[in-house]
């Protein structure tokens, strides 16, 4: 009954989406306010039905109703409740349902908070949003219905892939989808602007918060996925340049570029045509990511099931939306008026440079990801493009970008003073040089590459601080004045500083982890001691244990430093009988921001293969993105940009008396 209700709700949502995708367009054409307002009510109703459908699937999973194929294939009655819930999107059908639910959510948000949007713009945006939604509702209903029943219901389910039975599944996919799908809003705005043939700074003020929301979630989603892979897969790696990872990195790079070009458009009314193109490209890359992951073109843990009809269907959606929007762009973009002028050395120029490097870096990732597929189709040769390719292309493109980052915020709009900015960045430059010299001396003439990279990261972080110091007049004015000015600074300025510093922090983590990571691999028996990076790791015992739906072999280690006992670590190897598969549960010991990492291999007569890593400053890799996301949130909370409040603040905060 619940399954049928969920299915029916989904069909109704499709019906509403179809109305929403046509009626408001006609209304805008005939200047009929009533018809245009249909968009708002249908978007909200569509959200209601999509959520009802999603809730139905969650209920089926929670109650372990194995008469539903989806539940039977991915659940088990002994599975802990949290994994019963997260298992809803731990499979193809459920994750697509989550995808459309989030799409409906964003549409509903625009409908609910878009009261101050021009009526025809809102109608167009919601109509475009409904086109996307209709396509994906159809996809789910035709090729991946999660509510199918089994004629003879089995008693027990097949259990969820054990790798996915982790708290990471509760956070990573929803975050990532909020990011991917969030970019649909900027896409819809871009297409609506092209249809209307009109675009102004108010448009950018609207698009920016939505892009920012999507970007924040995507940043956190990618970081979360990376940390999950790091501790769950047991290899100690955090980024593999796997096509599926690249599929999420590409929209992130394009989205970051979009975020910056939208600033130029909002403040200076320039780069309109380019911003529109970026908005289209960013969401296209999100769709491409969905295609790569969901179609089974790439076989990985993310491609839950592979079915040709699904691949073809998503490819069709992909071609329709990307092809359609780009055609519309080619046809209408020239109609948009060019905006303000600026000199190459200016804030706008710096942001153009940022866009140039980000999109080029994105293009190299695109080539590295799709070239093997294209080559196989064309010549039949099978190749793999791995980390070396990306290290040789992506990294060199990021270096000039990183050097330029601190200069951007210090340049004035329209015409900037590069020399002046350089002078103001003197302190950051000195800090970077000191960091480089100290590290180089400390590594005693080892490769200068890592100290240089860290020097660069320090430059980025110190540059962000310099910008803040410059704006508040710290060290020049009395402290009280500086504090007052700091309070008066727009939150988006703070956001910029935090986000830029986050990039530097992540870079430090990445460089330290890859350069000074130490590793011990060997077989150990009880009483053996492994020495790594000054730590002594002793294997105390090996024991078998029974979990709710698995058996595990637990190894107990004692870690000591200089003879002092620090802590115990208990990595394990789990075997899930329902699927006959096993997973490696690594044990992590955090010391400051560094980590000790132990994962287990095979056992053979009392000895066990053990992999121990010491990963210096590894946590910075994920603190960086968290800092970036925090910066994004600060910027989002800026009055000027608050979602649904596109009007400027009445009085700048700086003019208020200090309490």
């Amino acid at each position, binding site marked *: 009954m619940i399954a049928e209700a969920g299915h029916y709700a989904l069909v109704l949502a499709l019906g509403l989406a179809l109305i929403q995708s046509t009626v408001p367009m006609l209304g805008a054409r005939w200047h009929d306010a009533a018809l245009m307002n249909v968009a708002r009510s249908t978007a909200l109703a569509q959200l209601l039905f999509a959520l009802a459908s999603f809730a139905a699937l969650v209920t089926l999973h929670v109650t372990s109703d194995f008469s539903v194929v989806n539940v039977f294939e991915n659940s088990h009655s002994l599975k802990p409740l949290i994994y019963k819930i997260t298992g809803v999107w731990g499979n193809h059908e459920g994750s697509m349902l989550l995808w459309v639910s989030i799409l409906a959510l964003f549409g509903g948000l625009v409908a609910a908070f878009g009261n101050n949007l021009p009526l025809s713009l809102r109608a167009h945006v919601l109509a475009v949003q409904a086109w996307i939604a209709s396509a994906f509702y159809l996809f789910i209903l035709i090729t991946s219905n999660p509510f199918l029943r089994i004629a003879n219901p089995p008693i027990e389910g097949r259990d969820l892939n054990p790798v996915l039975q982790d708290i990471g599944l509760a956070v990573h996919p929803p975050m990532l989808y909020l990011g991917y799908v969030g970019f649909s809003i900027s896409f819809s705005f871009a297409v609506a602007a092209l249809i209307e043939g009109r675009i102004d700074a108010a448009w950018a003020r609207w698009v920016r918060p939505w892009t920012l929301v999507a970007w924040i979630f995507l940043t956190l989603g990618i970081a979360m996925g990376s940390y999950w892979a790091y501790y769950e897969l047991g290899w100690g790696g955090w980024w593999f340049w796997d096509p599926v990872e690249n599929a999420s990195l590409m929209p992130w790079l394009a989205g970051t570029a979009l975020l910056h070009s939208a600033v130029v458009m909002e403040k200076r009314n320039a780069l309109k045509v380019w911003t529109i193109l970026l908005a289209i490209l960013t969401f296209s890359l999100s769709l491409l990511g969905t295609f790569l992951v969901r179609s089974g073109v790439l076989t990985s843990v993310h491609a839950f099931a*592979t079915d*040709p009809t699904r691949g073809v269907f998503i*490819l069709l959606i992909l071609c329709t939306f990307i092809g359609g929007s780009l055609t519309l762009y080619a046809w209408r973009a020239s109609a948009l008026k060019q905006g303000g002028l600026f*000199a190459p050395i200016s804030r706008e120029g710096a942001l153009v440079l940022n866009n140039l490097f980000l999109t080029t870096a994105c293009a190299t990732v695109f080539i590295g990801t799709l*070239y093997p*597929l294209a080559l196989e189709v064309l010549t039949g040769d099978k190749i*793999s493009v791995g980390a070396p390719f990306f290290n040789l*292309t992506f990294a060199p493109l990021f270096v000039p970008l990183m050097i330029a980052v601190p200069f951007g915020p210090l340049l004035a709009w329209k015409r900037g003073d590069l020399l002046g900015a350089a002078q103001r960045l003197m302190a950051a430059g000195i800090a970077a040089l000191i960091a480089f010299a100290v590290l180089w001396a400390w590594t005693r003439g080892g490769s200068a590459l890592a100290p240089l990279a860290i020097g660069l990261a320090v430059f980025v972080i110190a540059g962000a601080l310099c910008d803040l110091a410059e704006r508040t007049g710290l060290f020049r004015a009395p402290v009280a004045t500086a504090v007052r000015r700091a309070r008066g600074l727009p939150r988006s300025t703070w956001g910029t500083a935090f986000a830029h510093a986050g990039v530097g922090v992540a870079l430090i983590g990445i460089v330290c982890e890859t350069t000074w990571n130490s590793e011990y691999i060997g077989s150990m028996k009880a009483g053996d001691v492994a020495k790594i990076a000054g730590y002594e790791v002793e294997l105390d015992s090996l024991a078998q244990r029974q979990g709710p739906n698995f058996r595990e072999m637990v190894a107990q280690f004692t870690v000591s430093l200089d003879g002092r006992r620090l802590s115990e670590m208990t990595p394990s190897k789990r075997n899930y009988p329902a699927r006959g598969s096993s997973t*490696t549960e690594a044990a992590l010991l955090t010391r400051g921001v560094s980590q000790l990492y132990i994962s287990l291999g095979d056992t053979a007569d009392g000895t066990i293969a053990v992999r121990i890593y010491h990963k210096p400053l590894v946590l910075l890799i994920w603190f960086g993105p968290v800092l970036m996301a925090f910066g994004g949130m600060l910027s989002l909370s800026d009055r000027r940009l608050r979602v649904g409040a596109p009007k400027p603040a009445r009085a700048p905060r700086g003019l208020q008396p200090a309490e």
Partner: protein
Amino acid sequence: MTRKQRRLTMIGGSLTVLALAVALVLNAMRDSIVFFSTPGMVAEKHILPGKRFRLGGLVENGSLVRGDNLAVSFKVSDGNATLPVAYKGILPDLFREGQGVVAEGALDPSGVFRADTVLAKHDENYMPRDLADALKKQGHWKDDYGAKTDDNAKQAKQGVSQ
């Protein structure tokens, strides 16, 4: 500067970055791309020692030998030819004799494939697509790999026809 000059500066800058990117990509393509081979293809193509490639095939039954300090050796076969593989480290969770495997590394002068990576399989039915494809082509496909792998292979063909 006039509008035209500014535009030229922008275009010039973009082209510079683009040229840089193209140079980087071409350079990386030359050095860091790894081809996929089965033991039969290795015998045919006379791959030189030291050239990195990915080797795929089935782990021959009874060929797995564990040495000291996590050294392992096993043979990979595709039905036509077999190739000895040496690896040092922890094998992935689902490495089994008689199952498919993909290893990355290079041949040494004595003709042994020195693998530095053995790819993890993600579930018991998972077969790397390259391998499923190669096995199908050579008629060594067994139906008991499970329906899922069969789908993979179909998908792979799909990919080719698109």
